[in-house]
């Protein structure tokens, strides 16, 4: 299979795979146990915490492991119902792991306002200022969008919020491995990560929290994760995530360079061979391309690419594998027809020019 769907998930890095296997084999002891093997498990977990912290410029005590990006988001967002202030602001292009959570939280008497995006998929900062109230207790804006790759002005948003002393959460699951993520520079209060988006294992993620005092629990149980996230640690997942994060720190510049080359090459070929295609150009994540083929249906295109053994995506799939017009593409002003003719191609570190050539050749045949 030729895989161009790295925004959905990435193949696990071979070093990470090896490490997970070793950990599962050799270090089964509970990190909370005080005997020798338990202490070893604890050390490995704490090393991973440092590796994740290093990848985003944090310190290790600011990192809390979770079951993934979705849990990390939920962890932050559900704290809202305990606050005195009852207003929260999100962008209109958040992943359901934020937008749907807020829908649920609304039923607890929380008011939610939405910042819209321009035709590049970037939130309109001027709207943010109008939406802020005395009651605003949190703003949550993703670092980069999963469908169109639009990078959001997180640093600027924080500069505005600082005046009002409103904390900022950012869902950064699409960002790490593709753009620089530095919590100090961004100055965010909370940031969510998911390991499987950067060649780590699935089922593990982390939440960065600037100041631990601001964080309550979501999953309540034992005293793990400084008491804010109960449950015996997913040791192999955590260690896998730690190594994947370290590989990001070491290799990200190289990966980004490759992604940019592939993207440039692909778009050049598209312009030449597929002149009717519309590329939704944004200040995007490198290697993530949202492209429409007017007059074609994306589910037909996907099926034909699948026959050619090529994996791409066409919007958020639901439980029965179906495709609805994407709300994100709607938000940047696409008509339903163009919306449903859109493919998302997301390159990864292992993709090659030859694979892109094959993609272009196949697209030429089926479009």
């Amino acid at each position: 299979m030729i895989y161009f769907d790295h925004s959905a998930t990435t193949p696990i890095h071979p070093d990470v795979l090896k490490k997970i296997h070793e950990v599962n084999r050799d270090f089964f002891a509970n990190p909370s146990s005080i005997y020798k093997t338990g202490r070893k498990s604890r050390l490995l977990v704490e090393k991973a915490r440092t590796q994740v912290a290093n990848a985003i410029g944090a310190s290790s005590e600011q990192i809390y492991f979770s079951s993934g990006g979705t849990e990390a988001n939920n962890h932050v967002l559900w704290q809202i119902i305990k606050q005195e202030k009852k207003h929260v602001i999100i962008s209109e292009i958040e992943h359901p792991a934020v937008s749907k959570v807020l829908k649920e939280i609304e039923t607890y008497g929380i008011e939610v306002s939405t910042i819209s995006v321009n035709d590049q998929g970037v939130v309109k900062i001027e709207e943010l200022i109008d939406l802020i109230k005395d009651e605003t207790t949190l703003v949550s804006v993703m670092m980069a969008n999963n469908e169109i790759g639009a990078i959001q002005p997180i640093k600027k948003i924080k500069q505005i919020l600082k005046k009002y002393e409103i904390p900022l959460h950012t869902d950064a699951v699409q960002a790490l491995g593709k753009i620089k993520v530095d919590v100090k520079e961004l100055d965010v209060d909370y940031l969510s990560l998911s390991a499987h988006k950067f060649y780590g294992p699935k089922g593990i993620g982390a939440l960065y929290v600037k100041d631990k005092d601001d964080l309550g629990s979501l999953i309540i149980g034992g005293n793990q994760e400084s008491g804010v996230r109960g449950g015996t640690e997913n040791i192999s997942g955590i260690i896998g995530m730690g190594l994947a994060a370290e590989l990001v720190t070491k290799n990200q510049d190289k990966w980004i360079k490759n992604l940019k080359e592939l993207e440039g090459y692909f778009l050049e070929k598209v312009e030449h061979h597929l002149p009717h295609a519309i590329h939704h150009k944004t200040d995007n994540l490198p290697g993530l391309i949202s492209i429409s083929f007017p007059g074609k249906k994306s589910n037909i295109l996907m099926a034909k690419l699948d026959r050619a053994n090529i994996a791409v995506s066409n919007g958020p799939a639901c439980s029965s594998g179906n495709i609805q017009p994407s709300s994100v593409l709607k938000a940047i002003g696409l008509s339903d027809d163009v919306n449903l003719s859109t493919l998302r191609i997301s390159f990864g570190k292992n993709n090659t020019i030859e694979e892109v050539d094959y993609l272009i050749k196949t697209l030429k045949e089926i479009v």
Partner: protein
Amino acid sequence: MKETVIIGMSGGVDSAVAASVLKDQGHNVEAVFMKNWDEDDTEFCTAAQDYKDALQACDTLNIPLRSVDLTKDYWEKVFKIFLEECKAGRTPNPDILCNKEIKFKAFLDFAFELGANKIATGHYSMIVEKDQLYQLKKGKDINKDQSYFLHRLDQFQISKSIFPIGDLSKDIVRKKAKDLDLLNYDKKDSTGICFIGERNYKNFLRKFFDVYPGEIIKENGEVIGEHDGLMYYTYGQRQGLGVGGGHGKKEAPWYVSDKIIDENRLVVVQGQDHPSLYHTHVKASNVNWISGDAPNEDFGITAKIRYRSNDTPCKLEHDSKNTFIEFENPKFAIAPGQSIVFYAGDTCIGGGYIETRSNKNIS
């Protein structure tokens, strides 16, 4: 000839075995799961589970599975009409429209766009081509025969379709499924209207429109009870009237004989033999003839007034709009809105919607 056949895979045992039969016949087989109903706000719709079952079946059979979302088509072309019919106090059958508009139209179009030469489904019915005329035959398993639901198809639709298990019995289909290691071999047959499934019909309908309770009356106008809303009742219905009779009582049970829509009243009569429950004449509208033409009157035609009713000999007359059916013997509980479907022997020749019923010639 090796054709590309795209099969509508429902997650049930019938379409799975149908796919396997097609493979054995040497076709290039792909599968598509149709999503016709948006289940997001309900816990009853089983689409997600059905999709998983379809995925497993396709994995076992080693054929690719794709999905298509036809919820919009279904809503516009099937569900809206279902609601209108309910509001009018009629007894609609959305599965018939689903075949005509969705499975053998929207899905067919999708499959052809994907490069199919033909589509297939797991229906228990058979197709025979004679002199370039395509005939729709009853399924060989007469208990399972689904030709009733397919009677609104036309020549084009039938000519592009294959029913690979139409000549098999359900028992054989289940046995084949088991032999093939299909995990859904003993999955329960789906029952009822697909979008309602097992859920409470009354609660479901209540979400879509206001329902007005009214009087239940005898034929002489005497009020003997209250109904929950005319659309919840069908002609010949006995259960759920709440007007006595029935279990453990000496009095004969009551049956719905008529609905007076303007007055929002439900008319009931006592005893299954009551003459008001029986009619000899039916006026049917929008009749579809599968061959494209109305039949020659001369040969023996039978009709079903609902799925699973007996084939009853009848005579037909037509005017420019309607078909008039006369049964030799009166039929029980003929329901306006239901489809009356015509057969010549084991060939389904077409059918239409029951408009009115009576005991005299109304042509």
